[in-house]
């Protein structure tokens, strides 16, 4: 979402987020910010990290950092890119930690314990829920099998809707390199999904 879109949304009242209140750490403003961004942050870190425990830890870390840095927020700009950058950096730090690699070796995303808590709940049609959970598991497994730079590009672009320029800025590369990574990621995903016969 660009700033213009964000400003228009603000004007139209579709968002009642009070960024000045967030800067003051006003509880109501913080609650609104949380409600607006939690799902997006959680979805991003889950797709980047691949298991529920890591996603929860990372999400908590993201919101802790947001809370600590709330006073630096620019009230005239959409906070979403800022929060997305924090979330991506938290995941990147986690990737670089030896413990995460050990965890990745030990945890299978097929294991329901480490999967999404909602896979088997809140669905009207159990069969449909099962199919959706299976599809989600296969896609997530394929994304998780990608090399981390490729995974980041495909997740940031497909699920966060970022442009190559934004991805490049966030991941410290060039837009051309980001586009190449994206193409490579899709090619690898194609092979992985074909193997899984989705």
């Amino acid at each position, binding site marked *: 979402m*660009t700033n213009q879109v964000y400003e228009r949304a603000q004007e139209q009242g579709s968002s009642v987020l009070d960024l000045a209140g967030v800067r003051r*750490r006003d*509880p109501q403003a*913080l*609650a609104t910010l*949380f*409600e607006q961004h*939690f*799902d997006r942050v*959680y*979805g991003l870190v889950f*797709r980047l990290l691949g298991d529920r*425990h*890591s*996603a*929860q*830890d990372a*999400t*908590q*870390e993201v*919101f*802790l950092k*947001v*809370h600590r840095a709330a006073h630096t927020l620019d009230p005239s700009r959409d906070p979403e890119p800022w929060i997305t950058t924090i979330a991506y950096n*938290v995941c990147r*730090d*986690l990737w670089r*930690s*030896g*413990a*995460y690699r*050990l965890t990745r070796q030990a945890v299978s995303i097929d294991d329901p314990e480490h999967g*999404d*808590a*909602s896979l088997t709940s*809140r669905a009207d049609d159990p069969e449909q829920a099962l199919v*959706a959970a299976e*599809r*989600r598991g*296969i*896609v997530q497994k394929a*994304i998780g099998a990608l090399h981390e730079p490729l995974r980041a590009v*495909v997740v940031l*672009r*497909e*699920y966060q809707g*970022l*442009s*190559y*320029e*934004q991805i490049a800025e966030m991941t410290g590369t060039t*837009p051309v390199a980001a*586009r190449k990574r994206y*193409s490579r990621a*899709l*090619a690898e*995903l*194609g092979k992985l*999904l074909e193997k899984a016969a*989705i």
Partner: protein
Amino acid sequence: MSHGTETRPSPQETRVLEQLRAAPPHAADPAFRARLRRDFVSGEFAERPLVVALPRRRRHRARWVVGFAAAATVAIVAAALNQAPRWTALPSAGTGTVVVNGVSLSVANTSELTRRLRPGARLLLQSSQDLDLVSSGLLAMQLSPGTEMVLPSPPGRWFGRASRASVDRGLLRVTTGRRFGGARLAIRTPEATVHVTGTTLAVIAEPTGTSVCVLEGITHVRPHRGSMTRVHPGSTCEVVRGTATSRMREMREAERPKLLDLRDRLQAVMN
């Protein structure tokens, strides 16, 4: 958010994208969401499991351990490679014994003698002939009968290149090999210290004083209470017992052929 400069995806890419987009989003555990919301609003975050931070300390510790192990390995390997060749006793035509640290050995038993020749060992030659000792490529020494001395450590390859010996009485001839370059050997007698940096010379410790005969190269002689004297090839430096001065003379004629023989014979053996 806009996608900036776009290119149209290929059919294969489109198929993959459809599969990605068809996967439903992930929803968090409601209890986790509620707890985090409460923490975020209040600013009082519960203790975090911190999968990021704790193992980092472990990783740093592991790095230190690996670093120390690597450094220790390098040090051990370097020390092993730095070691100079051991002293070897060459067969002698004479009969008699060598007393090594109080243990008397036959000069004919060169293998046992070689085994006991360690840097710092005290030797006393009680034989009818000279005894040759060699550290391959570095140093060769010839002890005359009646000589009592302390054996030096051959200089190391890269470090530990200064060594010390002493001659209490008798005659020691020394010639240096091609790998001695840059090393130093100090030979102490009752009257003086002889500094060797690459030469062929004889150190004679007599009851009247010390004489140093230099065949080639430059040697420095310092009386224990005097100043350093430079000894040139073909010269003899004498330090009379009880004095602090040295005196230069022509080289002893008797020593020249023996030093030439030592140099030619042992240089061939050493190098």
